[in-house]
């Protein structure tokens, strides 16, 4: 966070590179490799949306949410449940996904944000698990097994998401919008108050800000964005499962943020890519791929406090 303007300009260069690579990736993927790579990168972008949303509150507000996957799951379930009732249009499903996850963030945020530090982590974890068990017990919607979404949503009746290439670019646009929104937010008046609250909440109150309201708003925004990621995930996998909400998933989102470089936004994209590619490749070597991934993660965290970005650009953070 130090020296914000300078940092952002370096960051902008990295962000532009990342988005440029993502924009032309499907063209490159056509040569040689099969469709699975396209699907994998689509998945990277979908999780990157949730990870950026998480970085917004963790990296800029020190609100370490350990229940962020619940919002992703809620967004996915909005798609799945609507589809099981025959409503398969994105113009309904997407707003529903955003609304449900935002509402869940608002209600749980009212409680969570009364606590600080470790208690905040525990209570967000508890709410995440509540969502997980609720989804598991939804017998009409598959319970433990989850439910299959037979086909992708239409957009105003048109089958715009049917091809994998189209879904890729929809995910790309959503990711770009998420990044642009969060980036604008952190330098706005709102973001300044939110960042200040993490530095010194007592000072913020003493100059007249009700810190709680700003943190709640950021929490709701982060929740809604994760809900959007869930909407895309359900469409990409044609499947919705309680596992989307498990605490392991929340942990993976935190890993993505930390791995890429916390408090940078674009780091979340790199972290999501690193995590999902490692999962993909290492799990081909052994089913115990986390035995390899774990130590790798420790090395990154210990030796590059700014995440992979910090490792490459040599900007260890001293905070």
């Amino acid at each position, binding site marked *: 966070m130090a020296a914000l303007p300078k940092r952002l300009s370096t960051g902008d260069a990295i962000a532009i590179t990342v988005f440029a690579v993502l924009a032309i990736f499907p063209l490159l993927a056509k040569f040689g490799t099969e469709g699975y790579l396209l699907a994998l990168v689509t998945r990277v972008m979908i999780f990157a949306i949730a990870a950026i949303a998480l970085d917004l509150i963790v990296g800029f507000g020190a609100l370490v949410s350990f229940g962020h996957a619940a919002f992703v799951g809620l967004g996915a379930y909005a798609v799945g449940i609507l589809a099981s009732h025959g409503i398969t249009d994105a113009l309904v499903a997407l707003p529903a996904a955003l609304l449900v996850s935002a509402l869940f963030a608002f209600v749980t945020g009212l409680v969570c944000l009364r606590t600080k530090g470790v208690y905040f982590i525990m209570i967000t974890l508890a709410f995440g698990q509540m969502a997980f068990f609720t989804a598991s017990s939804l017998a009409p919607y598959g319970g433990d097994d989850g439910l299959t979404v037979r086909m992708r949503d239409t957009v105003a009746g048109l089958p715009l998401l049917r091809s994998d290439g189209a879904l890729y670019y929809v995910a790309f646009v959503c990711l770009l919008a998420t990044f642009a929104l969060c980036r604008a937010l952190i330098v*706005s008046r709102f973001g300044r*108050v939110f960042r200040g609250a993490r530095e*010194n909440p007592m000072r913020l*109150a*003493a100059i007249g800000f009700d*810190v709680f309201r700003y943190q709640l708003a950021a929490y709701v925004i982060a929740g809604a964005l994760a809900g959007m990621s869930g909407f895309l995930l359900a469409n990409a996998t044609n499947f919705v499962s309680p596992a989307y909400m498990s605490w392991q998933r929340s942990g993976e989102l935190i890993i993505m943020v930390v791995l890429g470089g916390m408090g940078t936004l674009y780091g979340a994209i790199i972290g999501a890519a690193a995590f999902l590619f490692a999962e993909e490749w290492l799990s081909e070597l052994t089913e115990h791929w986390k035995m390899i991934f774990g130590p790798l993660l420790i090395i990154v965290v210990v030796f590059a406090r700014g995440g992979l970005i910090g490792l490459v650009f040599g900007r260890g953070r001293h905070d």
Partner: protein
Amino acid sequence: MTEPVLRIEALQKNFGAVRATDDVTLDIVPGELHAIIGPNGAGKTTLISQISGLLAPDAGTIRFAGTDVTHLPVHARAALGIARSFQITSILPRFSALENVALAVQARSGTSFRFFGRAASEPELNEPARAALAETGLAARADVLAAHLSHGERRALELAIALAMQPKLLLLDEPMAGTSHEETERLIALLQRLKGRFPIVLVEHDMTAVFALADRISVLIYGRILASGAPEVVRADKDVVTAYLGEEME
């Protein structure tokens, strides 16, 4: 006598068996600089914290500009115009000096639920902030991170933040604590200039500063007000001299 800006009545605060504030009744009138002195542990910071809202009193009332603020939270009292500095400097270390002050301006300027537009390039926030920095002698240090400022500069920054709030009452909790001799001189001169613009409650151990600045002095001992009045009167008070000033003034 003019209507007081701040009226504290029968204020009571206990920490377990310790009476930190014991039946304190105090008026602050417009424009005065009211110093609160007393030995360590007399309850000076506790009193300031109850006025600013950080601590809730056990009994008694605090009225500010005609409103009962006894149960209002800190941010609501700040919004009414009560600004404070802390005994242990309270700033945003990873914000620049300018941003620290601009945030205080922002609290006074329209809504902060504005999600777009770059706050750091809003002249309506930066100009008043620069003016407040200039007033406290920090104009040249505007772009330095608050964490990199010297101790005295941070104390001055806290004052600049308070000024940017356009306060109707300023509470200063030991602003001279730990500052060098020259910095103390500069702070006294600054407070001298600010005096009269708004009422100031000054908690301070530096008796030179207190007697140079105060219009009225209240002496707090074991949470009680032992004496209250003009500096000459307090200085001559036998009880005060025995209880506190004797050791401080030699």
